[in-house]
């Protein structure tokens, strides 16, 4: 075991822990930051276009931006481009709403062979389902608490 002879065993674990994962995590974070930041900057450009050029209301601006980004995420997934971005960007491509769209399309496409009902139709919700279940449920709990606090005159 050459490696053990070269590196004293006690130092070896410390060496691995210190050098390997840290530098990997660091570079992953940098890539996530840039790609995630870029997608959000694109989102800001779409927002500004909706707000100042199309002169939409605040709610419409949010809806417009979501629709465009979700469309782009889905289309790029279909073309196979989003997965290439994802390999590079990690969370930078998962966390933005385009990544949500990507996860939804990926699972549906993967099970296309099972047909349009139990394949595409059902698997569209492999990722969308949990997100909607937990998102909507938590918003209802939060709304109930807000309602009760209002009744008690505390909100």
């Amino acid at each position, binding site marked *: 075991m050459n490696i053990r002879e070269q590196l004293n065993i006690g130092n070896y674990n410390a060496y691995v822990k210190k050098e390997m994962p840290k530098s*990997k*995590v660091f570079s992953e*974070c940098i890539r*996530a*930051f*840039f790609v*995630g930041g870029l997608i*959000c*900057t694109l*989102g*800001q*450009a779409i*927002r500004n276009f909706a707000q100042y050029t199309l002169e939409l209301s605040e709610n419409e601006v949010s*809806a*417009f*931006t*979501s*629709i465009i980004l*979700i*469309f782009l995420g*889905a289309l790029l*997934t*279909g073309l196979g481009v989003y997965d290439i971005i994802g390999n590079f960007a*990690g*969370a*930078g491509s*998962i*966390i*933005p*709403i*385009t*990544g*949500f*769209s990507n*996860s*939804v*399309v990926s699972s*549906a*496409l*993967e099970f*296309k*062979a099972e047909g349009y009902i139990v394949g*595409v139709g059902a698997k*569209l919700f492999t*990722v*969308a389902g*949990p*997100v*909607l279940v*937990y*998102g*909507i449920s*938590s*918003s*209802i709990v*939060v*709304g109930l608490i*807000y*309602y009760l606090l*209002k009744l008690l005159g505390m909100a």
Partner: protein
Amino acid sequence: MDYIKAFAVGGIICVIGQILISLTNMTPARILVMFVTGGVILTALGIYEPIVEFGGAGATVPLTGFGYSLAQGVFKAVDEHGLLGIFIGGVTATAAGIAATIFFGYLVSIIFQPKVKK
């Protein structure tokens, strides 16, 4: 200026996600669920609203922004409809996103073929 803010805030939120993935090996579905629920809770606590005001799309484009819309929608609907608003608000505020995801997701899945895994 709002582009720089969106870039920085969006980037930082994605880095938080990356750290969670790198350190815990969570699947994307888990991360997305965590971020939506986190967005709802942070909005309810009044923490996310200032981040949205500062970061614009940097805070609304990440999935925490979806949680933000859900919570904001519920608060607004409770103010308008009382108890019923609890069930009306969230989905109403996020209707466009949900409908677009289902429709475009379906359309793309029909038109394109799955990539062969190499």
